[in-house]
């Protein structure tokens, strides 16, 4: 189980085994980076969050007591760093750009046409995500894109389960409307 593996790697890393810490990073970095990139829509900021998250883990290795799963802890750090960046960007008047199509999204589609269509669709989906309010985006990314259980999402974001559900509902509904507006413009109110 990955959790057991995390436990062993954490113990080794705490005793100073740097390679174990690097293995932990390798095991979790894609999830952290995906969350940050989808929250921020900007690769440079997502890279900052990736670094801040793992440096925070490194500095708190002794304090992290594994009462929650490591992935929950990392998601919480990454979500908080991302929200902080969004607040700073808003205060500074910066515009958040939608995730670019060049992002290295895992794809195993067989034909070039299907690949191109899928890339267009992904671009559209990522753009719509960036159209959500940050609080709703965080919930939708964690729950629907990353596939985390609802209770876990509430724990990651430090909100109640009803609040999580309410944000999820609003986010999904907004995305549904955006998808409809794009695929069927004459049907929009």
């Amino acid at each position: 189980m990955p959790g057991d593996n995390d436990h062993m790697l954490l113990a080794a890393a705490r005793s100073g085994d740097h390679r174990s810490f690097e293995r932990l990073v390798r095991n979790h970095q894609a999830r952290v980076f995906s969350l940050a990139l989808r929250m921020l829509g900007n690769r440079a900021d997502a890279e900052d969050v990736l670094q801040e998250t793992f440096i925070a883990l490194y500095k708190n290795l002794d304090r992290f007591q594994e009462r929650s799963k490591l992935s929950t802890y990392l998601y919480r750090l990454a979500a908080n760093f991302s929200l902080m960046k969004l607040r700073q960007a808003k205060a500074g008047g910066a515009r958040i750009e939608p995730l670019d199509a060049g992002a290295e999204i895992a794809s195993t589609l067989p034909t070039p046409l299907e690949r191109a269509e899928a890339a267009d669709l992904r671009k559209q989906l990522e753009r719509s995500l960036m159209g959500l309010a940050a609080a709703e985006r965080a919930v939708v990314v964690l729950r629907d894109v990353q596939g985390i259980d609802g209770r876990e999402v509430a724990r990651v974001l430090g909100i109640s389960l009803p609040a999580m559900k309410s944000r999820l509902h609003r986010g999904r509904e907004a995305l549904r409307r955006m998808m409809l507006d794009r695929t069927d413009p004459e049907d929009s109110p």
Partner: protein
Amino acid sequence: MSTKHDRTGSHHCRRMAAVFSDYLDRDLREAICRKVDEHLKQCPDCRLYLDTLSRTITLYRGLGGIRVPKNVESRLFATIRLAAEKNKRKKRATR
């Protein structure tokens, strides 16, 4: 994906729509779930609405992960090594 539910839905439909997200997540009490099922049987607008909501969620579930580019990973490991060195020096200094 097309639905006119947003404009024509009754108050009852809107109340139902408020729990569709939980309905799709199978996170509703059985009694409420039965009410939703009954309503869906009679309401084509809500069926269509639920279908578009479900398709949207499915699309997002299929988005997939994003690989960390090699250069980003290299910079991450370099930053961690720096932090580790700093930590070692700090420990040595406090001995």
